[in-house]
């Protein structure tokens, strides 16, 4: 369309507030998550390429990793996702008590996940399974390590949010912050769902 056609079109900018019609903070988080997708694409992609794109022989993950433990851990992370979304629901209903409760649950869930992963690492290292041990070691530690790093950042910011919640910062409909951090949290959960499957199970 030419500038003039536009000029005779609507002026006064209903569209000015966001072509996507999404709150700025949320949109920003989504855009950031898009870049995160590409980051994990590089890591997970390399794993796929190295394992299935080249003749490299690969150990059965089961023989190296403890699946039951990690399955439980996965479940824990999923739970923390649910508690997060519950916290959001509470915030929407302006139920401050619920918000605080669910946020605390989320922090605990996330922290547990990280500690279990740390324990798992410790165990694997003792068994002599290191980043240096073949492509499996390299890809395993890189992918899960960076995921763990993301969870850790999540937990830290979640603690910060919880403190703010206790200070009543999200009362009276000001709950956008909760939704935004929640998006990040669920994304990390989502990535883990993929990782758990292709790294531990397949």
């Amino acid at each position, binding site marked *: 369309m030419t500038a003039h056609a536009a*000029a005779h079109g609507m002026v006064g900018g209903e569209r000015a507030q966001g072509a996507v019609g999404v709150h700025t903070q949320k949109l920003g988080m989504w855009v950031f998550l898009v870049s995160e997708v590409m980051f994990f694409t590089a890591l997970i992609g390399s794993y796929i390429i190295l394992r299935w794109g080249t003749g490299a022989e690969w150990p059965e993950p089961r023989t190296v990793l403890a699946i039951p433990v990690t399955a439980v851990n996965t479940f824990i992370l999923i739970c923390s996702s649910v508690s997060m979304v519950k916290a959001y629901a509470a915030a929407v209903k302006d139920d401050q008590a619920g918000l605080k409760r669910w946020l605390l649950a989320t922090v605990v869930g996330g922290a547990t996940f990280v500690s279990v992963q740390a324990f798992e690492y410790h165990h694997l290292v003792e068994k002599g399974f290191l980043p240096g041990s073949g492509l499996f070691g390299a890809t395993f530690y890189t992918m899960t390590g960076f995921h763990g790093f993301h969870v850790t950042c999540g937990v830290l910011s979640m603690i910060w949010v919880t403190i703010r919640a206790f200070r009543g910062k999200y009362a009276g409909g000001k709950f956008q912050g909760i939704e935004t951090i929640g998006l990040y949290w669920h994304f990390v959960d989502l990535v883990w769902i993929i990782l758990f499957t292709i790294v531990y199970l397949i």
Partner: protein
Amino acid sequence: MTAAGTALPGHLHVDDRSFVRKYVFSTDHKIIGIQFLFLSLFFLLVGGLLAMGIRWQLGFPGQPMPLGGWLPEGVAPGGVVSPKTYIGLVTMHGTFMIFFAVMPLLVGVFANYLIPLKIGAPDMAFPRLNMWSFWLMIPSGLLMLASLFVLGGMSVAGWTVYAPLSNSPDYTGVHLGQQLWCLSIVIFGASSLLGSVNYITTVINLRAPGMTWFRLPLSVWALFITAVLAILAVPVLAGAVIMLFFDQTIGTHFYLPAGGGQPLMWQHLFWFFGHPEVYILILPAMGIASDVIANGARKPIFGYASMVWAMIGIAFLGFIVWGHHMFQSGMNPTLASAFMVSTIVIAVPSAIKVFNWLGTMWRGSIHFTTPMLNAIAFVSMFIIGGLSGIFMASTPVDMYIHGTYFIVAHIHYVLFGGSLFAVYAGIYFWFPKMFGKQLDERLGKVHFALTFVFYNLTFFPMHILGLGGEMRRIYDPTVYEYLRPMQPINVFISVSAFALFLAQLVFAWNIVRTLARGKKADINPWRDCGLEWTVPSPPPHGNFETTPTVYHGPYEFSVPGAAQDYLPVNQPLPPVPEGRR
């Protein structure tokens, strides 16, 4: 001051920020843009100095460099560049120019400074993130600078740091230098991500009333698309570099065949980032050139819509051509053919843009201001660089010219002739807005003329060298008999290169002098339509007294029936005269 329209977050207030908040850890997009300007000009200078080292060795192989005696023995024994130092110079020249000079110049400076002003926003969507994106560049840049001086020397693997050469000190003796390179690039990635998230969100959500998508200035469109490219491409580089870093430090084997790794995987990941990167380096230049050319020709941009679609096309195609850097790498030849086709197709949107620029000048009234001159140079030089790209896109021809100076010529025609000329155009054009002082036009024209001449004298002969078969990244061409006859060309290039460098000092001097005692610039020195020209120079914190309303596109020059030959976008169009459309 009155509060800005409720539509927009943040509002004007009496500016009572402390000096530090105002000029150091500022969250004001304008200050951040200016900080980026000086930082990246500094790195441009560094990259230029390194280039002079390169040219000395190539022009006068094995002869002691002037002032070379000051360099430590390890670097330049007796003032002579050592092979290791030479490759280091090349690597760091490429790295600094691409990541620390031109990319911040185009994106850091103009995206930050222009986007909010041009779309009528008081600031970026996330001013604090924006501040971080600048302050992350500092550690990143410092690490890269430090890597020049560490034990074992700087990275010597080329700016493409191909594995396995870059993986292990066994091959080059470089360890710390290469690791610092990786760290610096990862931090750089974080910085450009924060920036890009900001630009995208801002353009989508903070446009002033009436500033519809198809009224955005092409510069904003370009910067927006560039930001999209960045958030999609840069994370891949970050991931790849992190794996490289692990290979060097914790003994993984991602790229080392010894442990089952794949050297080619590095090349794929790098170029999956690398090619979009080169378009990150040209799209903003195209946007700036479009704005300046329309203004200089006093005419609406020709084919605005197709200009936009062409850029979107380039951006999309840019992601499926990365293999053209790997034609000779041992990649599956059938796949190479596919990449050849996509690469050749990408010339079409570029063609559209070139012809639309010509169309814009056609029947215009061209004012040869310094910005306009640089913008015209951009167009004509980009054509040369682009056309040389066609040779390489053809796989069989690339087989001969790959890894020769023909590529080096291409690089510099697109990156200097393209990007850097546009950067100069942009700086000359928006400097008055940024600092409220008008750069000296006479000095500007001198700088332009000298740069244009010596630039071509420096880089055009490189095509000949390439066709003669001279390889890139070689310390001393005279090792080869078949290259010796061409040594005079190398001498000629080097001399022109030194002159080119000196010509840039005119520019530096112009900036310094103008800042010291330049003549005051009025609000709208170029008689342009953009919103940024409706506010004082420099604009106040918060930009707009009240949220402006936009009534038409950004290029309404010489509108029939209008009082002056330009119509600011915040003024309604005159009634359409009879008979026209």
